[in-house]
């Protein structure tokens, strides 16, 4: 049996750990509220943008001749996966879930003979994926230095992706991130970024088609092509931005739950250790008493 001093030290160290996990939980809870707020505020924009593109696509006069960002470049040989994860650990299975989803996608795509490239956002995903797919990683971005997420970050990433698409480095681009449902549930999802049409088709199955224009025809200012040229890159940026915000909310939610569990486990451990400590102390006192009594009797 461990000595009293050893037990005391262990209780002390578990108590310290509990303090840390409790602090982390509270920080995560505060950040979660902010992140959730930001994610929810960004939703109307991305929803509306999706709606507008859907409208445009459905009323487009010549769908096949549309911009490549919308209809694709006719090939599907190389697929680039944009995997967005968190930069920090200690948030339960959050990062692992995203990475697992990414690996499932990679395996499925490679099975069907496609080439897969990886564009990684976030350090944790990079750490986990580089062991298996190091030579397929074309880009890695860490957002650790950014104090808060703003649209500019997504713009930079979006510009990079668009430039790579225009340079013909890939044919299809998919975005993998964690959709924030609530604090307990985050689901890793894959969304097609390029061509935008593919994603719209998926969305169109759930929703009804765009608003009924009563047969009226859209007026474009300046013109359809000009608008699409600006709108499509913006759509990519927005999708990335939304993904980053959802991810952040998910990370914080996941971290909060993980740290809550850790704090509770530490509490249980402290209870157990305290019980053992008290028992050991009692046993020691008893054995000391016995020694004294039997010593007195021997006299």
């Amino acid at each position, binding site marked *: 049996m461990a000595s009293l001093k050893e037990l005391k030290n262990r209780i002390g160290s578990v108590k310290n750990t509990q303090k840390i996990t409790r602090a982390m939980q509270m920080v995560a809870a505060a950040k979660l509220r902010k992140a959730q707020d930001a994610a929810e505020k*960004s939703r109307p924009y991305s929803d509306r943008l999706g709606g507008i593109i859907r409208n445009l696509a459905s009323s487009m006069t010549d769908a096949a001749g549309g911009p490549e960002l919308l209809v694709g470049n006719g090939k599907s040989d190389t697929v680039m996966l944009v995997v967005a994860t968190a930069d920090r650990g200690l948030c339960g299975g959050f990062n692992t879930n995203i990475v697992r989803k990414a690996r499932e996608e990679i395996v499925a795509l490679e099975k069907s003979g496609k080439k897969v490239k990886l564009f990684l956002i976030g350090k944790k995903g990079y750490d986990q994926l580089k062991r298996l797919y190091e030579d397929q990683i074309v880009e890695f971005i860490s957002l650790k230095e950014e104090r808060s997420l703003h649209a500019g970050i997504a713009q930079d990433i979006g510009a990079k992706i668009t430039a790579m698409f225009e340079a013909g480095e890939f044919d299809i681009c998919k975005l993998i991130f964690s959709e924030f449902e609530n604090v307990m549930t985050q689901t890793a999802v894959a969304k097609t970024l390029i061509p935008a049409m593919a994603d719209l088709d998926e969305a169109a199955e759930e929703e009804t088609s765009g*608003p009924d224009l009563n047969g009226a025809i859209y007026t*474009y200012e300046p013109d359809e092509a000009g*608008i699409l040229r600006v709108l499509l890159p*913006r759509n990519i940026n927005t999708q990335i931005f939304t993904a980053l915000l959802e991810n952040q909310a998910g990370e914080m939610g996941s971290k909060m739950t993980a740290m809550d569990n850790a704090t509770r486990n530490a509490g249980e451990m402290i209870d157990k250790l305290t019980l053992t400590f008290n028992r050991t102390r009692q046993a020691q006192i008893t054995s000391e008493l016995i020694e004294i009594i039997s010593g007195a009797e021997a006299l």
Partner: protein
Amino acid sequence: MADKLNFSLVSPEAELFAGEVDQVDIPGTEGNVGVLPNHSPLMAAIRTGAITVYNEGTETQYFVQGGFADVTPDGLTVLAEKAMPMADVNADSLKADIAAAEAALDGLEGEAALAMQQNLDGLRAVVSG
């Protein structure tokens, strides 16, 4: 009761306005557009400038930078790249934006330069107005 226009102004960061109004003036790239209820479907790109919302005799102004206006029979949606109430616009940060736009203009040509020039003009107009 007269018809009302269902107007919403959203930026990537937040939904700034949603509700029914009488009229909205939008700075389009091809010129200002006044949108009244039952406007025909329109999709317009927006330049830097001010959106004016008229409702019940009051005027509210919003500063917008880039984006789109989408008019459907359901109403008007403005998707702005950047947007804020005119009251929150800070002259100093605008001046910094102007300086940045001037610097960016030098390296551009063709259509991009035109867009940047429009952005610059809009910023200048807001500062002086």
